[in-house]
């Protein structure tokens, strides 16, 4: 297997892009990534997307986007794993390069959500759940997370207010990210007073949807040659994918042995740690999947940053901030950068690359050399973990 490097990144702001189509958004992110890498040779394109068929009545996104960016003829396909589609596409691209099958691969995550009525988007998101035994009972995706959170509060003894630091941290970091959907800080009081959407989850526990696209360009590490301006010719460190793993769990929350434990996060993180030869103590920052504040706690626990039932403590002790032991959601996370579902996993990886290159501006984690990104599909059914390192 060949080591894989990320040599280009690109993203659009997460926003209500009423003036832009799905293919145009994808193209913007792709051209930014190609420009960032200073390359135009591409063998393949992997598209992460969840709901284009449901919300835009458009599938065949591989061909659609390859055509749009002027590369008809290349191999291209869509990869779907609900909200985990973005990282699943990145992993597919990684495998194509690592195996030797392709020498230059584009990965783009794209989602167009704001054309639809809110109830249509809610129905679309619910397709991540078990259609016959969860969604058919009238459950929204928020409600499924609320069931997990309510049980977690009951078992662990934490109060809803103990989750405030997660949302406050994400918003504080998004203030400095020009691509973020909500570039505004929130206070503890605002968190407590926010409108309830599915008790105990209120509006400030939940990430906003949006339109957006993010892209990566992957090449074999061995093809990079030293120049007077570094291996990438631009004086930047080379970012390699040191760990990449995906795992699954039951699709329905009710079928889990413990609905408050993310087994697929634990499995994929363990596999990624083993590949990279690191453990949680070596991770300098963690872009986790804070679609809801409960997911931050569950992710930190499943990946070994907190004991079972102790995730909220890391927030309350300030360990998740930029200067803390394990900074999370350093560019705003899903909560404030926004959650264009099938694109989110690629945004997370773009943000880890920014950190490892030292391009994160006011949210730079000093000396960051090892970063982790974890993308969750459904209520934990597919979880993809990537560990990136700077050399």
């Amino acid at each position, binding site marked *: 297997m060949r080591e894989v490097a990320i040599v280009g990144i690109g993203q659009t702001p997460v926003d209500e892009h009423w003036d832009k189509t799905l293919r145009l958004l994808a193209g913007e992110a792709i051209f930014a990534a190609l420009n960032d890498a200073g390359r135009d040779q591409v063998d393949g394109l992997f598209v992460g997307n969840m709901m284009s068929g449901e919300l835009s009545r458009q599938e065949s996104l591989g061909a659609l986007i390859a055509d749009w960016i002027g590369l008809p003829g290349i191999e291209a396909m869509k990869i779907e794993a609900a909200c985990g589609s973005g990282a699943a596409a990145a992993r597919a691209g990684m495998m194509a390069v690592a195996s030797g099958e392709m020498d230059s691969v584009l990965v783009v995550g794209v989602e167009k959500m704001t054309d639809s*009525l*809110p*109830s*249509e988007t*809610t*129905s679309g998101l*619910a397709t991540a759940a078990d259609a*016959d*035994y*969860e*969604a*058919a*009972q*009238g*459950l*929204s995706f*928020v*409600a499924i997370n*609320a*069931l*997990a959170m*309510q*049980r977690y509060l*009951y078992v662990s003894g934490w109060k809803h207010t103990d989750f405030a630091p997660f949302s406050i941290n994400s918003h504080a970091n998004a203030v400095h990210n020009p691509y973020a959907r909500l570039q505004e800080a929130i206070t503890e009081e605002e968190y407590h007073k926010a409108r*309830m*959407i*599915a*008790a*105990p*989850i209120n509006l400030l526990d939940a990430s906003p949807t949006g339109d957006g696209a993010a892209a990566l360009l992957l090449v074999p590490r061995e093809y990079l040659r030293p120049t007077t301006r570094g291996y990438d010719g631009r004086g930047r460190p080379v970012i390699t994918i040191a760990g990449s793993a995906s795992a699954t769990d*039951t699709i*329905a*929350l*009710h*079928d889990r042995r413990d*609905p408050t434990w993310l087994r697929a996060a634990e499995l994929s993180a363990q596999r990624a740690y083993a590949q990279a030869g690191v453990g949680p103590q070596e991770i300098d920052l963690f872009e986790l999947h804070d679609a809801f504040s409960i997911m931050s706690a569950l992710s930190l626990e499943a990946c070994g940053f907190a004991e079972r039932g102790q995730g909220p403590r890391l927030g309350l002790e300030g360990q998740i901030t930029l200067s803390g032991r394990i900074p999370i959601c350093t560019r705003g996370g899903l909560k404030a950068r926004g959650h264009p579902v099938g694109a989110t996993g690629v945004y997370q990886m773009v943000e880890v690359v920014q950190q490892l290159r030292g391009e994160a501006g006011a949210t730079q984690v000093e000396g960051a050399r090892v970063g982790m990104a974890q993308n969750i599909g459904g209520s934990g059914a597919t979880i993809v973990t990537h560990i990136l390192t700077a050399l």
Partner: protein
Amino acid sequence: MEISRHWRLKKQRYSLIGEVCPHCDAKIFPPRDVCPECGQEARSEFAFSGRGQVYSHTTIYDAPAGYENNLPYTVALIKLDEGPIVTAQLTDLGAQPVEIGMPVEMVTRRIREDGDERGMLVYGYKFRPAWNAPIK
């Protein structure tokens, strides 16, 4: 929902029919062909009693398309007496506050108030407080 799809699920929706594993006696709902406990084939039907208790719950204020007229409504994870957990709406709550551990029993109710986009009225299981159940 497609009529045939609802028809296929009628035993589960109306009668809470799941399976019992012939190898390890695990009770399984919803039915699946591989036993989640022992990994062996399980295809023997088993009728659940419909009794259980609330394992977790939430109240929905933003509904998916087709469920808006029910707002707000309460959904729960129900731990059935025989073991499995099922996701369902709660009904007939009155002024009763929902709590984890509350005993409940299955009833058959209309799941969507107005029928679906094909005009079909969809009935299925919901759970209501079981007033006479022994406290566990």
